[in-house]
């Protein structure tokens, strides 16, 4: 796979994050290369959210270092991380339903045109680009003025992904993008991930669904109780093994037998 010819875009080394007496992350190492989809798996409470918030500049790590394109980086805010090229699509905070697709798409980075001493938002450009980028992702909008609230969950994720891609993300972090979606919308989001990966962007795909991970993942890292249990290449690990790792390798074994391996 071509992605292994490249050096990692982001490399996280032995990250620890403490909240008072609580150790949320206890030595996590992770890296993401261009054009790959690196799945981060873990059960609820494993520390996935804390980890991606550390990666996207919301939290500062208590210990450990973050290398961005080989250089050590300290992100002071999400904006710093974003400007460096790390874009995050949060599961619930991606979009503002009452605002139009265009306004959401450009939120925080609105294009402006100057008229005399005043600068106005360039809606012609904003609308055209939005329509075009959404079309690239396979969604035909009725109108760029359409409120995001009228879109389906999958379409909203896609708007957020298209936005990140358009604004030059090198790394795209997707926080459980499929967890609240139906089968067909999940398939749409997964195919969007595939499209994004092919443009050379590194995708960090957070999920607790092994099947979704196996569908698009190139590498898999499992997080359990604030620690990584190692990273596996595609084809080196079976879904059952991943499932066991996520559950800490014990409790689910008995249960899985009775469910016939469908979990």
């Amino acid at each position: 796979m071509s992605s292994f010819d490249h050096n990692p875009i982001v490399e996280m080394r032995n990250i620890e994050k403490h909240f008072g007496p609580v150790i949320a992350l206890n030595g996590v190492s992770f890296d993401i290369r261009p054009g790959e989809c690196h799945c981060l798996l873990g059960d609820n409470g494993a520390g996935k959210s804390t980890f991606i918030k550390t990666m996207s500049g919301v939290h500062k790590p208590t210990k450990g270092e973050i290398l961005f394109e080989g250089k050590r980086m300290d992100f002071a805010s999400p904006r710093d991380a974003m400007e460096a090229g790390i874009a995050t699509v949060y599961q619930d905070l991606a979009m503002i339903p009452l605002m139009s697709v265009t306004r959401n798409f450009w939120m925080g980075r609105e294009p402006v045109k100057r008229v005399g001493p005043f600068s106005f938002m360039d809606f012609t450009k904003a609308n055209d680009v939005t329509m075009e980028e959404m079309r690239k992702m396979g969604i035909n909008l009725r109108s760029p003025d359409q409120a995001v609230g009228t879109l389906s969950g999958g379409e909203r994720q896609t708007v957020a992904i298209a936005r990140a891609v358009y604004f030059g993300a090198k790394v795209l972090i997707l926080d459980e993008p499929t967890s609240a979606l139906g089968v067909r919308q999940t398939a749409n989001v997964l195919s969007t991930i595939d499209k994004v990966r092919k443009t050379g962007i590194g995708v960090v795909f957070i999920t607790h669904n092994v099947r979704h991970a196996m569908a698009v993942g190139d590498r898999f890292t499992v997080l359990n109780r604030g620690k990584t249990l190692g990273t596996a290449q595609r084809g080196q690990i079976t879904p059952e093994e991943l499932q066991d790792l996520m559950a800490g390798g014990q409790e689910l074994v008995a249960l899985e037998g009775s469910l016939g391996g469908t979990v």
Partner: protein
Amino acid sequence: MSSTGAAVDERIKETSRLRKALIRPELGAIVGTFAVFLFFIIFAGDSGMFNAQGVLNWSTVSAQFVIIAVGACMLMIAGEFDLSVGSMIGFAGMSIAIFSVTLGWPVWLAILLTFAICIAIGALNGVIVVRTGLPSFIVTLAFLFILRGFTIFFPQLIERRTIIGGIAERAAGDWLAPVFGGKVGGFFFDWLASQGLIAVFERGNRMGEPIVNGIPMLIVWALGLMVVAHIVLTRTRFGNWVFAAGGDAQAARYVGVPVARVKILMFMFTAFCATVFATCQVMEFGSAGADRGLLKEFEAIIAVVIGGALLTGGYGSVIGAALGALIFGVVQQGLFFAGVESSLFRVFLGVILLFAVILNTYIRRIITGER
């Protein structure tokens, strides 16, 4: 898809235009404005409500509401309330009076200082809300009392009374005072009067002059603020941030919108509008009283809600809020013209407010697709 694409697209566009018309936030206010005018043309058409003097009367009252509604609207879209607007009006007026009359400073200096003080208080409101994360309802409620208290305390302490007059004399010849208290277009009304189109004074030292001799600056301010706020909100990058800050502050923060700064600026703008209101009032009437502006914060919020803004933030329109203010002013003054018992005004207000909120909820359901 691609083979039938053209036909399908056209049909979709058709519905989208209809939907677009339906989901404008101003829709309810536009319908309401027509209904209200129709109502008063029928029931008060011959009462003087629509002669020059009557029109000036309800437009002036409406313009007052517009000025504070524009500020409240921007702030509400940014997701916050300001309940201290009414007290701010009293406070600002008193501040101008104390600086100019009691301390004898030039009126322009008094006005500029008052603007600086009030905008700073607005910023303080905003900083407290943003820093503590407390609901703005509570923070500004505190300022409602704090400012009203000072407005009564200072003049009593200094002058032993709660109304300070004599500002008109101090303002004579001042360069800044006419910007708030003056009138424009006098020659036009002189011409109208000379053509016999509007009434003139029948006696007194103004005999022969038109009864309406100009458009008060209050109305000019209202229109100006409305246009500027509308353009900023809908046509600029900052406007997008205002929507974003109110729609979902966290989501906006994640994409780098400076939510705290936007909200604080909107609190300052609301304070600015309240101060414009107060300055116009003080310059027109020549006195400042401790009871000025009572309950104006609610009237502003009601106008904004009638205008289609959502109390939860992130959605609304300045034009809608201005129409809401117009409805408010026309109904308030129109009921007098129609000879309705004035205590029923509150009943009307409640009914209109209820209709507006129900209509807004309905529109929001269309937008967000929840049925």
